[in-house]
Protein backbone atom coordinates (compact mmCIF):
# COMPACT_ATOMS: atom_id res chain seq x y z
CA UNK A 1 0.00 0.00 0.00
CA UNK A 2 2.47 2.68 -1.10
CA UNK A 3 -0.16 5.45 -1.21
CA UNK A 4 -1.17 4.74 2.39
CA UNK A 5 2.47 4.82 3.38
CA UNK A 6 3.08 8.10 1.57
CA UNK A 7 0.01 9.83 2.95
CA UNK A 8 0.80 8.62 6.47
CA UNK A 9 4.32 9.99 6.38
CA UNK A 10 3.22 13.23 4.71
CA UNK A 11 0.33 13.90 7.08
CA UNK A 12 2.34 13.17 10.21
CA UNK A 13 5.28 15.25 9.00
CA UNK A 14 2.98 18.18 8.21
CA UNK A 15 1.10 17.77 11.49
CA UNK A 16 4.29 17.66 13.53
CA UNK A 17 5.79 20.70 11.76
CA UNK A 18 2.63 22.70 12.30
CA UNK A 19 2.15 21.46 15.84
CA UNK A 20 5.69 21.69 17.11
CA UNK A 21 6.94 24.83 15.35
CA UNK A 22 4.24 26.86 13.66
CA UNK A 23 1.36 26.80 16.14
CA UNK A 24 1.35 29.21 19.09
CA UNK A 25 1.96 28.05 22.67
CA UNK A 26 -1.08 27.89 24.93
CA UNK A 27 -1.55 30.93 27.20
CA UNK A 28 -1.92 28.66 30.26
CA UNK A 29 0.00 25.52 29.37
CA UNK A 30 2.86 27.06 27.41
CA UNK A 31 4.76 24.73 25.12
CA UNK A 32 3.48 21.66 26.97
CA UNK A 33 0.31 21.97 24.94
CA UNK A 34 2.22 20.61 21.96
CA UNK A 35 2.09 17.13 23.56
CA UNK A 36 -1.63 17.34 22.83
CA UNK A 37 -0.96 16.92 19.10
CA UNK A 38 0.21 13.40 19.78
CA UNK A 39 -1.84 12.60 22.85
CA UNK A 40 -5.31 13.46 21.62
CA UNK A 41 -5.12 11.71 18.22
CA UNK A 42 -3.59 8.67 19.93
CA UNK A 43 -6.47 8.57 22.40
CA UNK A 44 -8.98 8.89 19.57
CA UNK A 45 -7.27 6.09 17.68
CA UNK A 46 -7.22 3.92 20.82
CA UNK A 47 -11.01 4.12 20.93
CA UNK A 48 -11.36 3.86 17.18
CA UNK A 49 -9.25 0.70 17.05
CA UNK A 50 -11.25 -0.94 19.83
CA UNK A 51 -14.45 -0.10 17.96
CA UNK A 52 -12.98 -1.47 14.74
CA UNK A 53 -11.86 -4.59 16.55
CA UNK A 54 -15.29 -5.18 18.07
CA UNK A 55 -16.98 -4.45 14.74
CA UNK A 56 -14.73 -6.85 12.87
CA UNK A 57 -15.27 -9.47 15.58
CA UNK A 58 -19.04 -9.12 15.36
CA UNK A 59 -18.87 -9.40 11.57
CA UNK A 60 -16.66 -12.47 11.90
CA UNK A 61 -19.08 -14.19 14.26
CA UNK A 62 -22.24 -13.29 12.34
CA UNK A 63 -21.05 -13.94 8.79
CA UNK A 64 -18.31 -16.43 9.72
CA UNK A 65 -15.88 -14.55 7.53
CA UNK A 66 -12.27 -15.55 8.09
CA UNK A 67 -10.89 -12.21 6.91
CA UNK A 68 -12.85 -10.33 9.58
CA UNK A 69 -11.16 -12.47 12.24
CA UNK A 70 -7.80 -11.64 10.73
CA UNK A 71 -8.65 -7.93 10.74
CA UNK A 72 -9.74 -7.97 14.38
CA UNK A 73 -6.64 -9.82 15.45
CA UNK A 74 -4.37 -7.56 13.46
CA UNK A 75 -6.00 -4.46 14.96
CA UNK A 76 -5.38 -5.38 18.59
CA UNK A 77 -1.63 -4.67 18.85
CA UNK A 78 -2.01 -1.44 16.88
CA UNK A 79 -4.79 -0.27 19.17
CA UNK A 80 -2.80 -1.28 22.23
CA UNK A 81 0.16 0.75 20.94
CA UNK A 82 -2.01 3.83 20.42
CA UNK A 83 -3.38 3.38 23.94
CA UNK A 84 0.12 3.14 25.29
CA UNK A 85 1.18 6.28 23.41
CA UNK A 86 -1.85 8.10 24.82
CA UNK A 87 -0.92 6.96 28.33
CA UNK A 88 2.75 7.81 28.00
CA UNK A 89 2.13 11.20 26.43
CA UNK A 90 -0.52 11.94 29.05
CA UNK A 91 2.00 11.13 31.71
CA UNK A 92 4.64 13.37 30.05
CA UNK A 93 2.10 16.17 29.90
CA UNK A 94 1.14 15.59 33.53
CA UNK A 95 4.65 16.19 34.81
CA UNK A 96 4.79 19.94 33.99
CA UNK A 97 1.04 20.51 34.46
CA UNK A 98 0.34 18.54 37.64
CA UNK A 99 3.90 18.23 38.90
CA UNK A 100 3.67 14.44 38.88
CA UNK A 101 3.97 11.67 36.32
CA UNK A 102 0.67 10.09 37.07
CA UNK A 103 -2.62 11.39 38.35
CA UNK A 104 -5.69 9.19 38.70
CA UNK A 105 -7.50 11.52 36.37
CA UNK A 106 -10.72 10.15 34.87
CA UNK A 107 -9.45 10.18 31.29
CA UNK A 108 -6.08 8.64 32.02
CA UNK A 109 -7.66 5.99 34.23
CA UNK A 110 -10.17 5.07 31.55
CA UNK A 111 -7.31 4.81 29.08
CA UNK A 112 -5.46 2.54 31.48
CA UNK A 113 -8.46 0.22 31.73
CA UNK A 114 -8.75 0.25 27.95
CA UNK A 115 -5.11 -0.77 27.80
CA UNK A 116 -5.89 -3.70 30.11
CA UNK A 117 -8.78 -4.70 27.85
CA UNK A 118 -6.43 -4.75 24.86
CA UNK A 119 -3.89 -6.83 26.78
CA UNK A 120 -6.56 -9.33 27.81
CA UNK A 121 -7.63 -9.67 24.19
CA UNK A 122 -4.07 -10.19 22.95
CA UNK A 123 -3.26 -12.77 25.61
CA UNK A 124 -6.52 -14.65 25.00
CA UNK A 125 -5.96 -14.67 21.24
CA UNK A 126 -2.61 -16.36 21.85
CA UNK A 127 -3.71 -18.80 24.51
CA UNK A 128 -5.04 -21.63 22.37
CA UNK A 129 -3.37 -24.31 20.28
CA UNK A 130 -6.40 -24.36 18.03
CA UNK A 131 -6.35 -21.19 15.91
CA UNK A 132 -10.03 -21.20 15.13
CA UNK A 133 -10.95 -21.48 18.78
CA UNK A 134 -8.56 -18.63 19.64
CA UNK A 135 -10.11 -16.37 17.03
CA UNK A 136 -13.68 -17.03 18.07
CA UNK A 137 -12.98 -16.75 21.78
CA UNK A 138 -11.15 -13.47 21.28
CA UNK A 139 -14.02 -12.19 19.12
CA UNK A 140 -16.54 -12.78 21.90
CA UNK A 141 -14.23 -11.02 24.36
CA UNK A 142 -13.88 -8.01 22.06
CA UNK A 143 -17.65 -7.63 21.90
CA UNK A 144 -18.13 -8.10 25.64
CA UNK A 145 -15.39 -5.55 26.26
CA UNK A 146 -16.90 -3.09 23.82
CA UNK A 147 -20.28 -3.25 25.54
CA UNK A 148 -18.48 -2.62 28.83
CA UNK A 149 -16.40 0.36 27.74
CA UNK A 150 -19.17 2.99 28.26
CA UNK A 151 -20.05 1.48 31.65
CA UNK A 152 -16.41 1.57 32.72
CA UNK A 153 -16.12 5.16 31.47
CA UNK A 154 -19.21 6.20 33.42
CA UNK A 155 -18.03 4.45 36.58
CA UNK A 156 -14.55 5.92 36.40
CA UNK A 157 -15.96 9.43 35.87
CA UNK A 158 -18.22 9.02 38.88
CA UNK A 159 -15.38 7.66 41.00
CA UNK A 160 -13.14 10.51 39.90
CA UNK A 161 -15.55 13.31 40.75
CA UNK A 162 -16.02 11.65 44.11
CA UNK A 163 -12.35 11.54 44.97
CA UNK A 164 -11.10 14.64 43.16
CA UNK A 165 -13.59 17.44 43.60
CA UNK A 166 -11.09 20.11 42.46
CA UNK A 167 -11.37 20.40 38.70
CA UNK A 168 -8.06 19.80 37.00
CA UNK A 169 -6.87 21.32 33.78
CA UNK A 170 -8.46 19.65 30.81
CA UNK A 171 -5.95 18.39 28.30
CA UNK A 172 -8.14 19.64 25.48
CA UNK A 173 -10.50 22.49 26.11
CA UNK A 174 -13.95 22.78 24.59
CA UNK A 175 -12.95 25.73 22.43
CA UNK A 176 -9.80 25.46 20.44
CA UNK A 177 -8.05 27.97 18.23
CA UNK A 178 -7.94 27.15 14.49
CA UNK A 179 -4.15 27.42 14.54
CA UNK A 180 -4.17 24.50 16.95
CA UNK A 181 -7.00 22.64 15.25
CA UNK A 182 -5.17 22.27 11.94
CA UNK A 183 -2.18 20.30 13.26
CA UNK A 184 -4.48 18.30 15.52
CA UNK A 185 -6.64 17.19 12.60
CA UNK A 186 -3.62 16.52 10.38
CA UNK A 187 -2.14 14.30 13.06
CA UNK A 188 -5.46 12.54 13.61
CA UNK A 189 -5.85 11.73 9.93
CA UNK A 190 -2.20 10.76 9.75
CA UNK A 191 -2.63 8.34 12.66
CA UNK A 192 -5.71 6.88 11.00
CA UNK A 193 -3.92 6.28 7.69
CA UNK A 194 -1.04 4.81 9.70
CA UNK A 195 -3.49 2.37 11.24
CA UNK A 196 -4.83 1.29 7.85
CA UNK A 197 -1.33 1.00 6.46
CA UNK A 198 -0.08 -1.23 9.28
CA UNK A 199 -3.35 -3.13 9.28
CA UNK A 200 -2.89 -3.96 5.59
CA UNK A 201 0.67 -5.17 6.24
CA UNK A 202 -0.35 -7.28 9.21
CA UNK A 203 -3.30 -8.81 7.38
CA UNK A 204 -1.13 -9.68 4.38
CA UNK A 205 1.34 -11.31 6.75
CA UNK A 206 -1.38 -13.29 8.43
CA UNK A 207 -2.82 -14.49 5.13
CA UNK A 208 0.62 -15.51 3.89
CA UNK A 209 1.29 -17.38 7.13
CA UNK A 210 -2.03 -19.20 6.66
CA UNK A 211 -1.06 -20.20 3.13
CA UNK A 212 2.31 -21.51 4.34
CA UNK A 213 0.59 -23.53 7.05
CA UNK A 214 -1.81 -25.00 4.51
CA UNK A 215 1.06 -25.93 2.19
CA UNK A 216 2.99 -27.57 5.02
CA UNK A 217 -0.11 -29.50 6.07
CA UNK A 218 -0.73 -30.67 2.51
CA UNK A 219 2.87 -31.79 2.16
CA UNK A 220 2.72 -33.67 5.47
CA UNK A 221 -0.53 -35.32 4.41
CA UNK A 222 0.73 -36.35 1.00
CA UNK A 223 3.89 -37.77 2.57
CA UNK A 224 1.78 -39.71 5.04
CA UNK A 225 -0.34 -40.93 2.13
CA UNK A 226 2.72 -42.09 0.17
CA UNK A 227 4.01 -44.01 3.12
CA UNK A 228 0.74 -45.79 3.79
CA UNK A 229 0.10 -46.82 0.19
Amino acid sequence: MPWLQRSTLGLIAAGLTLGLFLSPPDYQQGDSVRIMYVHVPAAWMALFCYTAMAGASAAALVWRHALAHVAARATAPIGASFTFIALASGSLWGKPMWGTWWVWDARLTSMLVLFFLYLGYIVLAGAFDDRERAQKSAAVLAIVGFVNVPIIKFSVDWWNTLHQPASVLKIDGPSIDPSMLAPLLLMAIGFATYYFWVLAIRMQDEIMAGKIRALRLRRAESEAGDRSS
Partner: protein
Amino acid sequence: MTRFTGDDVACVRGERTVFFGLSFQLGAGELLLLTGPNGSGKSTLLRLMAGLSRPIGGRIQWDGEDIAAEPERHRSRLQYVGHADAVKPQLSVKENLGFWASLARDGVSPGAAIEDALAAFGMEALRDMPSRFLSAGQRRRLALARILVAPAALWLLDEPAASLDDAAVQALDHALQSHGANGGIAVVSTHIGLAGETATRARVLDLTPARARPVVGTLA
Protein backbone atom coordinates in the same frame (compact mmCIF):
# COMPACT_ATOMS: atom_id res chain seq x y z
CA MET B 1 -38.89 -44.27 4.59
CA THR B 2 -35.79 -42.21 5.23
CA ARG B 3 -35.79 -40.06 8.33
CA PHE B 4 -32.23 -38.96 8.92
CA THR B 5 -30.30 -37.75 5.91
CA GLY B 6 -27.05 -36.01 5.10
CA ASP B 7 -26.68 -34.33 1.76
CA ASP B 8 -23.30 -33.33 0.33
CA VAL B 9 -21.93 -32.59 3.81
CA ALA B 10 -18.51 -30.98 4.04
CA CYS B 11 -16.43 -30.27 7.10
CA VAL B 12 -13.32 -28.19 7.66
CA ARG B 13 -11.38 -28.29 10.93
CA GLY B 14 -8.95 -25.44 11.32
CA GLU B 15 -7.43 -25.16 7.87
CA ARG B 16 -7.85 -28.81 6.97
CA THR B 17 -10.69 -30.31 4.96
CA VAL B 18 -11.77 -33.39 6.90
CA PHE B 19 -14.31 -34.62 4.33
CA PHE B 20 -16.61 -33.29 1.65
CA GLY B 21 -19.40 -34.51 -0.58
CA LEU B 22 -20.59 -36.89 2.11
CA SER B 23 -24.15 -38.20 1.92
CA PHE B 24 -26.19 -40.72 3.85
CA GLN B 25 -29.83 -41.75 4.14
CA LEU B 26 -31.11 -43.66 7.13
CA GLY B 27 -34.60 -45.05 7.61
CA ALA B 28 -36.32 -46.18 10.79
CA GLY B 29 -34.51 -49.03 12.51
CA GLU B 30 -31.34 -48.67 10.52
CA LEU B 31 -27.80 -48.74 11.88
CA LEU B 32 -24.88 -46.94 10.29
CA LEU B 33 -21.32 -47.92 11.11
CA LEU B 34 -18.67 -45.26 10.52
CA THR B 35 -15.29 -46.74 9.69
CA GLY B 36 -11.96 -45.29 8.67
CA PRO B 37 -8.56 -44.68 10.21
CA ASN B 38 -7.87 -42.18 13.00
CA GLY B 39 -8.28 -38.62 11.85
CA SER B 40 -10.66 -39.51 9.03
CA GLY B 41 -13.47 -37.58 10.72
CA LYS B 42 -15.65 -40.20 12.40
CA SER B 43 -16.03 -38.23 15.63
CA THR B 44 -16.38 -35.01 13.68
CA LEU B 45 -19.26 -36.44 11.67
CA LEU B 46 -20.99 -37.63 14.83
CA ARG B 47 -20.66 -34.15 16.33
CA LEU B 48 -22.13 -32.67 13.18
CA MET B 49 -25.01 -35.13 13.42
CA ALA B 50 -25.57 -34.17 17.06
CA GLY B 51 -25.60 -30.48 16.16
CA LEU B 52 -22.58 -29.67 18.33
CA SER B 53 -20.94 -28.13 15.30
CA ARG B 54 -22.25 -27.12 11.93
CA PRO B 55 -21.12 -28.35 8.52
CA ILE B 56 -19.40 -25.82 6.31
CA GLY B 57 -21.38 -27.13 3.36
CA GLY B 58 -24.35 -29.40 2.78
CA ARG B 59 -27.36 -30.25 4.91
CA ILE B 60 -28.19 -32.69 7.67
CA GLN B 61 -31.92 -33.24 7.99
CA TRP B 62 -34.41 -35.11 10.11
CA ASP B 63 -37.77 -35.77 8.46
CA GLY B 64 -36.87 -33.17 5.86
CA GLU B 65 -36.12 -30.43 8.39
CA ASP B 66 -32.58 -29.11 8.87
CA ILE B 67 -31.39 -30.08 12.34
CA ALA B 68 -30.05 -26.57 12.93
CA ALA B 69 -33.53 -25.10 12.37
CA GLU B 70 -34.93 -26.40 15.66
CA PRO B 71 -31.86 -27.31 17.69
CA GLU B 72 -33.77 -28.07 20.87
CA ARG B 73 -36.15 -30.44 19.12
CA HIS B 74 -33.21 -32.24 17.60
CA ARG B 75 -31.45 -32.48 20.95
CA SER B 76 -34.49 -33.96 22.63
CA ARG B 77 -34.59 -36.78 20.11
CA LEU B 78 -30.97 -37.88 20.40
CA GLN B 79 -28.64 -39.60 22.81
CA TYR B 80 -24.95 -39.01 22.34
CA VAL B 81 -21.99 -40.86 23.80
CA GLY B 82 -18.68 -39.14 23.11
CA HIS B 83 -15.09 -40.09 23.79
CA ALA B 84 -15.33 -38.97 27.38
CA ASP B 85 -17.62 -40.81 29.76
CA ALA B 86 -19.05 -37.77 31.58
CA VAL B 87 -18.93 -39.65 34.87
CA LYS B 88 -18.52 -37.51 37.99
CA PRO B 89 -16.21 -39.29 40.44
CA GLN B 90 -17.88 -37.59 43.43
CA LEU B 91 -21.29 -39.13 42.67
CA SER B 92 -22.40 -42.72 43.00
CA VAL B 93 -23.21 -44.80 39.93
CA LYS B 94 -26.92 -44.34 40.49
CA GLU B 95 -26.63 -40.59 41.10
CA ASN B 96 -24.66 -40.16 37.90
CA LEU B 97 -27.22 -42.01 35.86
CA GLY B 98 -30.13 -40.44 37.70
CA PHE B 99 -29.01 -36.92 36.86
CA TRP B 100 -28.85 -37.54 33.13
CA ALA B 101 -32.09 -39.51 33.28
CA SER B 102 -34.11 -36.74 34.90
CA LEU B 103 -32.46 -34.17 32.67
CA ALA B 104 -33.53 -36.01 29.53
CA ARG B 105 -36.98 -37.16 30.62
CA ASP B 106 -40.11 -35.13 31.02
CA GLY B 107 -41.67 -35.31 34.45
CA VAL B 108 -41.86 -39.07 34.94
CA SER B 109 -39.73 -40.48 37.71
CA PRO B 110 -36.87 -42.35 36.05
CA GLY B 111 -36.41 -44.91 38.86
CA ALA B 112 -37.40 -48.03 36.95
CA ALA B 113 -35.57 -46.94 33.78
CA ILE B 114 -32.37 -46.48 35.77
CA GLU B 115 -32.61 -49.98 37.22
CA ASP B 116 -33.27 -51.45 33.77
CA ALA B 117 -30.35 -49.57 32.23
CA LEU B 118 -28.01 -50.71 35.01
CA ALA B 119 -29.20 -54.29 34.58
CA ALA B 120 -28.72 -54.14 30.80
CA PHE B 121 -25.04 -53.43 31.26
CA GLY B 122 -24.55 -55.64 34.28
CA MET B 123 -24.04 -52.79 36.74
CA GLU B 124 -26.80 -53.55 39.32
CA ALA B 125 -24.31 -54.57 41.98
CA LEU B 126 -22.36 -51.33 41.60
CA ARG B 127 -25.46 -49.16 42.05
CA ASP B 128 -24.29 -47.35 45.19
CA MET B 129 -20.57 -47.45 44.52
CA PRO B 130 -18.88 -44.03 44.34
CA SER B 131 -17.90 -43.65 40.71
CA ARG B 132 -14.30 -42.81 41.53
CA PHE B 133 -13.72 -46.53 42.22
CA LEU B 134 -14.92 -47.62 38.77
CA SER B 135 -12.53 -49.10 36.24
CA ALA B 136 -12.26 -47.63 32.73
CA GLY B 137 -14.51 -50.35 31.33
CA GLN B 138 -17.08 -49.88 34.09
CA ARG B 139 -17.14 -46.12 33.47
CA ARG B 140 -17.72 -46.80 29.77
CA ARG B 141 -20.60 -49.12 30.65
CA LEU B 142 -22.08 -46.42 32.84
CA ALA B 143 -21.81 -43.96 29.96
CA LEU B 144 -23.57 -46.43 27.67
CA ALA B 145 -26.27 -47.15 30.23
CA ARG B 146 -27.16 -43.47 29.90
CA ILE B 147 -28.59 -44.02 26.41
CA LEU B 148 -31.13 -46.46 27.87
CA VAL B 149 -32.53 -44.24 30.62
CA ALA B 150 -34.48 -41.99 28.30
CA PRO B 151 -36.07 -43.04 25.03
CA ALA B 152 -34.49 -41.38 22.00
CA ALA B 153 -35.04 -41.88 18.30
CA LEU B 154 -31.39 -41.33 17.40
CA TRP B 155 -28.31 -42.78 19.03
CA LEU B 156 -24.92 -41.32 18.19
CA LEU B 157 -22.15 -43.46 19.69
CA ASP B 158 -18.49 -42.57 19.34
CA GLU B 159 -16.28 -45.64 19.75
CA PRO B 160 -18.71 -47.18 22.22
CA ALA B 161 -16.77 -50.44 22.44
CA ALA B 162 -13.56 -48.80 23.68
CA SER B 163 -12.27 -50.62 26.80
CA LEU B 164 -15.36 -52.85 26.97
CA ASP B 165 -15.06 -56.57 27.73
CA ASP B 166 -16.83 -59.25 25.68
CA ALA B 167 -19.88 -59.36 27.90
CA ALA B 168 -20.33 -55.61 27.69
CA VAL B 169 -19.89 -55.61 23.91
CA GLN B 170 -22.65 -58.20 23.77
CA ALA B 171 -24.86 -56.06 25.96
CA LEU B 172 -24.24 -53.13 23.61
CA ASP B 173 -25.04 -55.36 20.64
CA HIS B 174 -28.26 -56.35 22.30
CA ALA B 175 -29.18 -52.77 23.12
CA LEU B 176 -28.56 -51.70 19.52
CA GLN B 177 -30.72 -54.56 18.29
CA SER B 178 -33.73 -53.72 20.40
CA HIS B 179 -33.24 -50.04 19.57
CA GLY B 180 -33.44 -50.94 15.88
CA ALA B 181 -36.40 -53.21 16.44
CA ASN B 182 -38.24 -50.27 17.99
CA GLY B 183 -37.55 -48.21 14.89
CA GLY B 184 -34.64 -46.26 16.38
CA ILE B 185 -31.75 -45.07 14.25
CA ALA B 186 -28.16 -45.46 15.41
CA VAL B 187 -24.88 -44.17 14.07
CA VAL B 188 -21.84 -45.86 15.58
CA SER B 189 -18.23 -45.05 14.92
CA THR B 190 -15.77 -47.87 15.37
CA HIS B 191 -12.43 -49.05 14.18
CA ILE B 192 -12.93 -52.47 15.71
CA GLY B 193 -15.82 -54.38 14.18
CA LEU B 194 -18.88 -54.93 16.28
CA ALA B 195 -19.65 -58.61 16.67
CA GLY B 196 -22.92 -60.44 16.29
CA GLU B 197 -26.04 -59.70 14.35
CA THR B 198 -25.77 -55.92 14.53
CA ALA B 199 -22.74 -56.02 12.30
CA THR B 200 -24.51 -58.04 9.63
CA ARG B 201 -27.49 -55.75 9.32
CA ALA B 202 -25.44 -52.57 9.58
CA ARG B 203 -24.73 -50.25 6.70
CA VAL B 204 -21.21 -48.94 6.52
CA LEU B 205 -19.88 -45.50 5.71
CA ASP B 206 -16.16 -45.64 5.04
CA LEU B 207 -14.45 -42.33 5.70
CA THR B 208 -10.96 -43.39 4.56
CA PRO B 209 -9.53 -40.26 2.91
CA ALA B 210 -8.32 -42.11 -0.23
CA ARG B 211 -11.94 -42.38 -1.25
CA ALA B 212 -12.55 -38.72 -1.88
CA ARG B 213 -16.32 -39.10 -1.88
CA PRO B 214 -17.48 -41.49 0.80
CA VAL B 215 -20.41 -43.70 -0.19
CA VAL B 216 -22.69 -45.72 1.97
CA GLY B 217 -22.41 -49.43 1.34
CA THR B 218 -22.81 -52.64 3.26
CA LEU B 219 -20.17 -54.67 5.01
CA ALA B 220 -19.99 -57.23 2.20
